[in-house]
């Protein structure tokens, strides 16, 4: 794969032809309404994140920023373990979360030298000496994505890989997607006023490359591939973890629920979703939309009925 990247890097860069102001203005006005031929559909891809092997190295965060040329957020000490990224944002499309589960009265003395800790078995519950949980968070690329359903400009689409993608030349920063996302992923940027989030390295995928974060992950906590393969791999991993005694391990988002679609970025977790900053039971608000419209019309119709009766009576 590395040689493929080097090969692509040697290709000449494209250039824009100089345009007059009028042409640029017309392009700005008409361009968004033009439609190209949609790309041919490809097998759905996604991420599977095995949090049990995440070591919190943040290589994914760095690789994402580097590849996507995302600016630094500055360094702000949050006081929350090693998490100084704090949240997913327009400039941080990966966010490694740190959860320290240590008893209040635990002694912080290292185990005697020579005592080996098995890396094969992760305890099912919080062990007496405590444990770390780490997770690299990212856009969930929902199959029925509220952000995409909300978007009034058509900027948010499911691309040919069935990933949720924001077309940067179309988004006008209305922020409805920000409000609609139940995972708090999308953010409107201060620098251009547009919404931004993980693209699942759309550009790399088109060139047959693995997303930068998955490529950089040293423990294969982040895995990328066709979604069906990933699900199968993840289920086998959960079985393996159960066999090793970690019966609390489960998959989050691999299958649809009655209130939410499956995610194309799903996780193996070992504690409640809320512990990782994920909603316990994601809910797609579009399920309530019809009823909300009915109540809106009822609210208006009641007033209209009153007015019509009075107007007709008052007019005669």
């Amino acid at each position: 794969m590395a040689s493929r990247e080097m090969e692509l890097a040697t290709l000449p860069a494209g250039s824009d032809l100089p345009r007059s102001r009028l042409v640029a203005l017309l392009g700005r006005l008409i361009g968004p309404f033009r439609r190209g031929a949609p790309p041919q559909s490809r097998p759905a891809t996604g991420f599977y994140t095995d949090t049990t092997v995440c070591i919190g190295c943040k290589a994914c965060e760095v690789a994402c920023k580097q590849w996507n040329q995302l600016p630094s957020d500055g360094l702000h000490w949050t006081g929350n373990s090693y998490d100084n990224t704090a949240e997913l944002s327009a400039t941080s499309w990966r966010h490694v979360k740190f959860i320290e589960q240590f008893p209040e009265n635990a002694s912080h003395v290292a185990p005697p030298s020579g005592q080996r800790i098995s890396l094969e078995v992760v305890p099912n519950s919080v062990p007496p000496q405590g444990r770390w949980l780490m997770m690299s968070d990212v856009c969930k690329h929902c199959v029925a994505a509220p952000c995409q359903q909300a978007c009034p400009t058509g900027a948010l689409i499911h691309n040919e890989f069935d990933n949720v993608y924001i077309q940067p030349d179309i988004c006008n920063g209305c922020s409805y997607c920000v409000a609609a996302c139940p995972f708090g992923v999308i953010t409107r940027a201060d620098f251009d006023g547009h919404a931004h989030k993980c693209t699942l390295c759309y550009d790399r995928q088109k060139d047959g490359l693995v997303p930068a974060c998955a490529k950089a992950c040293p423990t294969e906590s982040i895995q990328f591939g066709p979604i069906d393969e990933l699900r199968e791999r993840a289920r086998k991993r959960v079985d393996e973890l159960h066999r090793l005694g970690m019966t609390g391990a489960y998959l989050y988002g691999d299958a649809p629920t009655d209130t939410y679609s499956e995610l194309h970025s799903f996780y193996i977790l070992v504690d409640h979703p809320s512990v990782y900053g994920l909603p316990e039971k994601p809910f797609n608000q579009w399920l309530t939309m019809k009823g909300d419209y009915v109540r809106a019309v009822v609210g208006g119709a009641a007033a209209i009925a009153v007015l019509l009766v009075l107007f007709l009576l008052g007019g005669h």
Partner: protein
Amino acid sequence: MNGYAGRTVTKAPDWHGLVAWDLLFNNLTTGLFLVAAMGELAAPEVFASVARIAYPIALVFLIADLILLVLDLGDPWRFHHMLRVFKPGSPMSLGTWCLTVYSLPLTVATALSLFPEADSTFDWLRKTTLVLGLLPALGSAAYKGVLLSTTAQPGWKDARWMGGYLTNSALLLGCAVLLTLAVIMGQASAAATLRTALALLLVFNGLTLALLAANLRPALSRLFNRGQLWRVGLLTIIGGFLAPLSLVLAGDRPVFILAAVILVLSGSTLVRFVIVKIPHGSP
């Protein structure tokens, strides 16, 4: 031990004062048009003259609302991207198209109002225009609440009556403004009917507000402490409901009616600012 538990997962959108004013102006323009058009169509001899003044005012409210909507975009120069697609499943897209369609009959009705000579010639055009404007005006009023309640934001996502309240409120506000015009223009017959209508609509609006408040109670408890909640509640109930209702019922003196209308407008504005603030008050 609990990691990120207890934190709000969602991100609050950058919607602040502009959106609160947008909610108000949207409801003012659509409500005023609906009430004036229904009045003129149902009883033209009573409402025609006051309605002719109402349409240009509704257009001014609409222009103010559209300016607010554009300014609130992250990239206002891309406002026309809203018309790239028609997505009925997106309340914002549906609302944009409703507002666009609604602006056409409203503009025609305004133009005909401004040229009374042409108006008498094109009476059929005026009536057709008003009828054609009713549905998009109602759609423009109805989408706002649904837009907010289909988000994942704390409070808003539980507000099943957001749309019911705002649509009802649009007609209340429209009635209040039209009543003001009738009083100023000395249209006694129109003012008498609208005064009764305002009293009844206040009761209806109080009911939808109570339903909305019940939906929003947990969110409001996070936003305000107990004392603040009582003060905001009392201010809304007394200032925005009981006091204007009493003034409207007290008599037809213009000063009472104008005071009632000012209170209705103030109470409605306060409610809209509280609604917009809700997601920003979560832990």
